[in-house]
């Protein structure tokens, strides 16, 4: 280690050119991976657009399904989807936010709380069809809701509950503790602090989480099949105890048919579903951006 310069250098063969070349090749491979994902996305969307364009029309949106493809539409499916979304929101919001408030503001730091927390994280990873099995046994049969909107909504509410809870917890955690301390300092009770100070500040984050979990629920098919949503519905639901169908199930039903016409109908229905999803996600993003810019003040 004593000689400087050339003798020292001779012991190393850095092969820089080759290493640089390997690096460039690797970078190209990585870029190609990303390209694969993006190209696939574009192809999928294009395929849907091409297949479904011819079938999208006003009548399509307002007609009932039919064996005659030219007369078929998604009216009960859209209405069923909207019914389900509203019911899921009404059920999961109180339970989800309530659980989040409990975990963040009330629960003692102990093993039980940690268990509940881990349990919620695990529930988020349970396959959706298992929720369908649960819904079938509990809501359809045990509670006797039958194959109704209520059974479907309750099942989906359980499915998205972990997501709602986790999002609400994050929003509540983001409220600065100085706010709470100030409220406690003037003699407010815990519930008063939560209701008047924590929740209003956390609400935009909570709502964003709700919208995102609803956008997950809107595409769910398997649990609703298990709970008995139908594929051929000749009426629109008028109460939560009615039979029903939703867009994904209609799509499933039409896709599985052999006739090409129904494939086109399925594509059109997919387009409607994707637009709905897009609107929901954009709302969530707008909400989050406004909320973040307000907090920046």
């Amino acid at each position, binding site marked *: *280690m*004593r000689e*400087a*310069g050339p003798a*020292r250098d001779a*012991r*190393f*063969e*850095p*092969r*820089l050119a080759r*290493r640089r070349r390997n690096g460039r090749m690797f970078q190209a491979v990585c870029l190609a991976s990303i390209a694969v994902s993006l190209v696939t996305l574009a192809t999928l969307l294009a395929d849907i657009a091409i297949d479904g364009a011819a079938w999208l029309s006003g009548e399509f949106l307002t007609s009932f399904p039919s064996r005659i493809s030219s007369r078929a539409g998604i009216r009960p499916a859209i209405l069923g989807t909207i019914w389900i979304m509203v019911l899921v929101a009404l059920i999961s919001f109180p339970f989800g936010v309530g659980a989040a408030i409990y975990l963040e503001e009330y629960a003692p730091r102990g093993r039980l709380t940690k268990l509940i927390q881990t349990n919620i994280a695990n529930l988020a990873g349970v396959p959706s069809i298992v929720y369908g099995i649960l819904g079938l046994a509990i809501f359809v049969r045990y509670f006797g809701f039958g194959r109704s909107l209520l059974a479907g909504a309750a099942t989906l509410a359980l499915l998205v509950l972990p997501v709602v809870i986790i999002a609400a917890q994050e929003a509540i955690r983001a409220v600065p503790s100085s706010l709470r301390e100030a409220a406690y300092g003037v003699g407010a009770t815990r519930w008063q602090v939560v209701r008047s100070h924590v929740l209003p500040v956390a609400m935009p984050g909570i709502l964003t989480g709700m919208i995102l979990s609803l956008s997950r629920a809107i595409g769910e098919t398997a649990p609703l099949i298990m709970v008995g949503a139908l594929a051929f519905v000749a009426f629109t639901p008028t109460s939560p105890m009615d039979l029903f169908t939703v867009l994904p199930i209609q799509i499933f039903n039409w896709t599985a048919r052999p006739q090409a016409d129904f494939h086109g109908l399925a594509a059109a229905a997919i387009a409607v579903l994707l637009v709905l999803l897009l609107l929901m996600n954009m709302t969530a993003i707008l909400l989050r951006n406004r909320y973040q810019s307000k907090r920046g003040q």
Partner: protein
Amino acid sequence: MNIPPGQLDSALDTHDLSVFYGDTHAVKRISLSIPRNRVVAFIGPSGCGKSTLLRCFNRMNDLIPAARVEGEVNFRGTNLYAPDVDPVEVRRRIGMVFQKPNPFPKSIYENIAFGLRINGFRGNLDEQVERSLRAAAIWDEVKDRLEDRALELSGGQQQRLCIARALAVEPEILLMDEPASALDPIATSRIEDLIEDLKSDYTIVIVTHNMQQAARVSDYTAFLYIGELIEYGDTERLFTNPAKERTEQYITGRFG
């Protein structure tokens, strides 16, 4: 402001070196010469640019997108910032030890072998690993457990391992950015002894916020203040009889 470089062989010198972070002028037109086989210390209050200056010597500032370097750093007759110079090549010849010990989460052996492998070392790997660990005065402590994970070592040992890792690729210059600031006093003094031993084979530049340490280990000291080189000279003279008032204020603790 150079030390009398004519009297000493220069390992590396800078000419009007400046570093900008965005609009901030962090290092302001510094020219100095690092003499071969000596220890040079950079001292100064925090934020004065000493670490930034150090990182220019092995082009580590390249890793920061917002950083812009102007001026020259000359090493072996080449300006390191010339457009055709490969920073990867520079960094093998000018090694660096960092403030917090940062061994790889691998075995002790693999920590040393990593640099050798990527730089295409052509000799005997085991021998070189042993030589490096001996040079860093840690061989006796780890020779029986080379396969153990490096993170199991104590802080001081990890830092000596990092020094061994840097020495393994046989750099000419070793840059040390506050190498002992995260260590306890005993580990610190071992590192300082090590620096004393190493300078016969390497040129060492050390950044430190501890003036006593600079006085103990270095031959020459450069005092920086808000990006400028205020004074640079023989360590003993600078600490006992500084030429500039600002230097005197700093070493007497007038500001920190």
